[in-house]
């Protein structure tokens, strides 16, 4: 029971983080839309393109819009998977096999997140900037990567534990984590 409560609470906490990051990503998508459209209109209608638009969009908004959506996509179970064979496998076996690989994937993403954190930190310490009319600091864009990847690590750990517990005893540990769509179907 305690284990179920732990998984549930971890899931709730992760959902809050995922939604928060998704809101920032959504604002970035809106900003891309407005900035790029304004740049095109200003260029053709007033012959006055926005000189800073490309740098802002390419170096910051692009990275934030993609990466900060990663946790939401994982949490909602939006990732595509090949479910042709998995559908035909016994559900318990599917849980049993998904569990270690979710934990392995958590390990892989954790390594990515760790190195991305180091990179962001060293860019901040060194005061790295992208040369141009405006000196854009590098660390802000680099920070988006670990900020997005760490919640994924915890979500994958939660999924791995939930799959494992369900494989052991489906009645005591009914699968409550957001499933990959193979199980949601």
């Amino acid at each position, binding site marked *: 029971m305690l284990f179920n409560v732990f998984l549930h609470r971890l899931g709730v906490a992760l959902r809050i983080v995922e939604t928060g990051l998704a809101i920032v990503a959504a604002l970035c998508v809106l900003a891309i839309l407005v900035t790029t459209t304004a740049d095109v209109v200003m260029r053709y209608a007033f012959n006055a393109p926005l000189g800073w638009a490309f740098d802002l969009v390419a170096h910051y908004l692009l990275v934030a819009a993609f*990466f900060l959506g990663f946790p939401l996509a994982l949490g909602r179970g939006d990732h595509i998977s090949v479910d042709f064979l998995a559908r035909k496998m016994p559900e318990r076996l599917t849980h049993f096999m998904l569990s270690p690989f979710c934990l392995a994937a958590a390990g892989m993403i954790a390594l990515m997140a760790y190195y991305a954190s180091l990179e962001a930190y060293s860019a901040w310490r060194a005061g790295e900037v992208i040369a141009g009319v405006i000196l854009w600091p590098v660390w802000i864009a680099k920070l988006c990567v670990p900020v997005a990847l760490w919640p994924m690590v915890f979500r994958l750990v939660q999924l791995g534990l939930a799959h494992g517990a369900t494989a052991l005893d489906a009645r005591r540990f009914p699968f409550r984590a957001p499933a990959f769509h193979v199980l949601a179907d």
Partner: protein
Amino acid sequence: MSIIAALVLLLILLAIGLPVALSLGLSGALGLWLVGGPQLMLGILATAPGSAISSYELLTIPMFLLMAEFMVASGISNTLFDAVACWTARLRGGLGIATAITGAAFGAISGSSTAAAATLSTSSVPSMIRQGYEARFASGIVAVSGTLAMLIPPSIAIIFYGLLSGTDVGKLLIAGLLPGILVTLTVVLTIRFMIWRNPRLSPAVGQTSWAEKLGSLRIAGPFIGLFLLVTGSIYLGVATPVEASALGASGAMILTLVSGAMSRQVLVTALFNTIATSAMIGLIIVCASFLGYFLTITGVTRSMIAWITESGISPHVVLLLLILLYLALGCFLDQLSILILTVPVVHPLIVSMGFDPIWFGILIILLAEIGMVTPPVGLNLFVVARATGQPVDDVVVGVVPHVIAHLLLIVIIVIFPQIILWLPNSM
């Protein structure tokens, strides 16, 4: 040995239903470990995420997705079928023809074939069945018409191919236009042929007044305007694909505002769906880059090309084998998975044999269209079956004539590559 280990792990992970992105990442990481030790693997895990999501053209994906979300939210796409049907109702099989044209029009504002099939299922199938169409015939038309969204610009699958292969995304999008029109015509001709063979498939012919026809132009106008804004600006070189996609999304947002359908909920749903799908594609690109580095380091692609060149096999035989491979993969995998698994290996091979990468990209998308309607994993079959309440088997029977016609069109496009290359070469 390392290649076999990575490939076996990839197949196992895909088979158990682990997301494609994570499967690619884990198998790529294992391969890198085996071929260069932990240092190589850690080095690539550290650098790949940032470099994979750095291409400016990636922005076309969220912008085009947002455009489609707004157009669906505006409700205009739901009424499009009725608007087109006004003009074709007097023809025998007119509603079927309207479905095909609506599928193409839907493709002009959305790159998702499943979204097109779902929308068409709810709007056109009930109308066709009311008019006496045989249910299998009607659902087959809808399932195949939904696939047109993959080809007619803007197409997410085409952009994805462009990003994976390094081919010019703007030219690729324009290259999809003429084949898209030809596929639409093929669907229309197949419908007419089927009705000519068996008139009971579509017994009745509808009537519409000129007032209805003129009224329908109000619905078609925004679609045509948005299509011209996006595709026209890319073709004329007025805007880059990214700028055109942003203009399209802005136009769709204005249409949603004007139609009165915009609300906070609609905006939030559109944005969240957009970032979730973009993130899904983004994570695949990041994780696929591990496998890409692994393949590059092992030199497997180079060795394969050298082996094929030395063996003296005709390029057309290789092409035929690739077409058969894509048809087989289409039965089991979705189009993004097929592209991510094959393009890094097949694209260099195709270029080395002298084929045009733009032509080949469109050919793959045409083959993927067939995959969308072939069992056991043809997604559109299930979307239509679920939306119309018909057995999947019936939808499969209805789609068979269209698959045969589609294959004939592919033969024509292989023989005459100019069909695909004419428009992009004139840019």
